[in-house]
C-alpha cells in the first residue's frame, strides 16, 4: 500500500484529519529543506509537499513565487532535489509529495523524472497545470512506478468533478477558492456544499488547500474536509528568519499550532 493511503487509513482509524504542509526545495538551501521536513514531521505534519521551484509558477501567488526565485538563485537543480528526498527518507517516515509544474517533468524527461522520484522515495505528485485532458501522457507511467498522481478539483469544476476524481488515489486536492496560492483572511467559497459535492463522487480523502493560513482558519474549515494543506503561511514564517536554527525552531512551533487547530475532530 502506498504510504499516503496508509497514512489516511491510520488517521481515519484514529479519528484524525491530515495536516499537509508545503516547503520549497532549496529555500533557503538544500540542507535546511531536509531538516525542515524532519521538523515538520516531528511537529505533526502528516504528509509533506515538496515544491520544485519553477521560473513561471502560474498557480502560485507572491509568497511561493518569491520562495521559488530564492531557491533558483541558490542554483538548486532537480538532481539536488532528488537528493533532498533521499536524505529526508533516511530520517523520516512521512509521506512525501512533489508539487511540480509540468514543464519541469516534461523537459527533464517524464520517465527519468518518475524513475528518480520513485527511487528517492516520493509517494505522490501534484501537477498544478495538468488538467485531466492532458494527463494521458503521464498517469499510466506513474501508476507503474507506484507514484500517485494527486488530482485537483476547483470550485469552478462543477460537472468535471466526476471525471477528475474517477480512479483517484491518495487524496483529492480541493482548491478552496478561485485564485492562486497565498494566505487569505477568509475563504469565500461555500465549503459545505463544495466539499459535499466532491464526496458524492469519491471516497478518497479530500484535502483542502489554498489560502489556509492559521490554526484559527483550520478550526473553521476542518469539519468539511479530511485534511488541510498549508503552504504560503509556512514559507512566510520561515522567510522571517536568517538564522537557520531559529528558522527551524519557529517552523516547528508554527506547524504544532496548525496541528492543534486540527484536534478535537467531530465525526
Amino acid at each position: 500500500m502506498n504510504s499516503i493511503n496508509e497514512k489516511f487509513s491510520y488517521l481515519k482509524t484514529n479519528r484524525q484529519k491530515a495536516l499537509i504542509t508545503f516547503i520549497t526545495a532549496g529555500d533557503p538551501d538544500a540542507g535546511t529543506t531536509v531538516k525542515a521536513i524532519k521538523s515538520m514531521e516531528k511537529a505533526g505534519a502528516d504528509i509533506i509537499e515538496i515544491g520544485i521551484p519553477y521560473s513561471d509558477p502560474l498557480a502560485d501567488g507572491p509568497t511561493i513565487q518569491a520562495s521559488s526565485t530564492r531557491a533558483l538563485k541558490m542554483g538548486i537543480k532537480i538532481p539536488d532535489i532528488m537528493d533532498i528526498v533521499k536524505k529526508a527518507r533516511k530520517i523520516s517516515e512521512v509521506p512525501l509529495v512533489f508539487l511540480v509544474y509540468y514543464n519541469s517533468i516534461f523537459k527533464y524527461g517524464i520517465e527519468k523524472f518518475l524513475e528518480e522520484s520513485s527511487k528517492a522515495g516520493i509517494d505522490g505528485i501534484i501537477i498544478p497545470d495538468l488538467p485531466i485532458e492532458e494527463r494521458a501522457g503521464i498517469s499510466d507511467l506513474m501508476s507503474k512506478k507506484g507514484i500517485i498522481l494527486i488530482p485537483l478539483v476547483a470550485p469552478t469544476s462543477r460537472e468535471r468533478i466526476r471525471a477528475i476524481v474517477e480512479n483517484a488515489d491518495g487524496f483529492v486536492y480541493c482548491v478552496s477558492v478561485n485564485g492562486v496560492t497565498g494566505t487569505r483572511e477568509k475563504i469565500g467559497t461555500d465549503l459545505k456544499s463544495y466539499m459535499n459535492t466532491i464526496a458524492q463522487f469519491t471516497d478518497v480523502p479530500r484535502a483542502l488547500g489554498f489560502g489556509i493560513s492559521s490554526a484559527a482558519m483550520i478550526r473553521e474549515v476542518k469539519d468539511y474536509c479530511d485534511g488541510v494543506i498549508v503552504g504560503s503561511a509556512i514559507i512566510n514564517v520561515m522567510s522571517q528568519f536568517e538564522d537557520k536554527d531559529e528558522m527551524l525552531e519557529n517552523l516547528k512551533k508554527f506547524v504544532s499550532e496548525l496541528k492543534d487547530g486540527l484536534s478535537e475532530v467531530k465525526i
Partner: protein
Amino acid sequence: MKGRFGKFGGQYVPETLMNALIELEDEFENAMKDEEFLKTYRYYLKEYSGRPTPLYYAENLTQTLGGAKIYLKREDLNHTGAHKINNVLGQILLAKRMGKKRVIAETGAGQHGVATATGAAKFGMECEIFMGEEDIRRQSLNVFKMKLLGAKVTPVKTGTQTLKDAVNEAIRNWVSNVDTTFYIMGSVVGPHPYPTMVRDFQRVIGDEARSQILEKEGRLPDYIVACVGGGSNSMGIFYPFIEDKDVQLIGVEAGGMGIESGKHAATFYGGSTGVLHGMMTYILQDEEGQILPVYSISAGLDYPGVGPEHAYLKESGRAKYVYATDKAALDAFMTLSKIEGIIPALESAHAVAHAMKLAPTLDKDKIIIVNLSGRGDKDVDIVSKFMGVKL
C-alpha cells in the same frame, strides 16, 4: 486532436480555468457561425478600425534593392496603429456576448494594451492591463495612452519584467476573477482556444492581402514575410495562404544582439519543445525547463515562446523561420522611413529587414508581401536613444 496542431497546443492550465476555457470555446464556435456576430465584427473592422488596409507597392524600396517587387500590407494604418485591434474587436464582442463586464490583457510593446483599452472604452468595459516594469520604461507613451483610455495599468515586477511575466500575471488575475472577467489574449499563444481564436480574428489580414494581390498582380505572391513574437500578425497573414504551396511563408524572429550572444528572442534558434502559458510549443528554456530570459530591442517580440501553430508550421516545413538582429531591424527602420516615408514599428522592421535581405537575391518578376504590422511612433524614443540623439 481538438486544440492541437500536431503535438503542439493543448491546455496546460490550473483546473480553475478549465470550465472557463470550455465555455469560451463553445461561445467562440457559436459566434463564428452567427451571421449577426460576424456582421457586427466586420462593421467595426471597417468603420472603427478603417479596414481594409491597403496593400501598398513599395516602389522606392523595390527599386533601391533592385530585385523582387515588395508590397507592404499596411496594418500600421489601423486604428491604434497596429494589427492588434483586429483581434481585440473580435474578442471584446465575444466578451460582450458572454455578458462579461471586465476585460484584462497582457501587453509587451503596449500595442495590444492600447488596442484592448480602446475596445474597452468603446464598449464600456472595465479594463486592466498587465505590463512588465521594464516594458513600462521602454514604452511610456503607450502606458500614458492606455491610462487616457481609462484602463488601469498594473506593473509586473516579477521575473524579467517583460511580456512573459505580464502573461503570467494576467493568467493569475484571470484565475482569481474567472467568473466576471474575460481575458483578451493578444497573440496566437496560450491554452486552446486562444491560438485558434486569435488566428481567426487576425486572418482578415491574409484574406485581404490575398484578394488585393490577385487584383493588382493577377497572381499570388512568391513570399510572405512577417515578424514573429507570439506570432499573431504572421499567423493572420499566413493562414489564408497555407494551402497555396507555391507561396513561401517566412516568419522573422528577433535576433537581438545575435544568436551567439545569447541575447535574443528567436525561439526557433536554440529553443526546444516545452510548456509555457498553457501551451506546448517551442520555448527558450534550460535543460530543466526553466524559462530563459530573452532579449530584443522590440518589446513586442521579446517573448520566450511562440504560437503552437507556428511550431507546427515549422516542424511540417510549411513555413520557414529566420531572424533579424536589432541592428538589421534598426537599419530597416531607417531605410523605410527615409525612402518610403513610412516609419515602421520596430517589430515590423524585423520583417522589413529580412525582405531587404531577400529581395536583391530574387528576380524582378518575383513578389514579396511584407506584413507591416504596426507603425513606429511608439518607438522613436528608443531609436533616438540608440542613435544618441536627445529629444
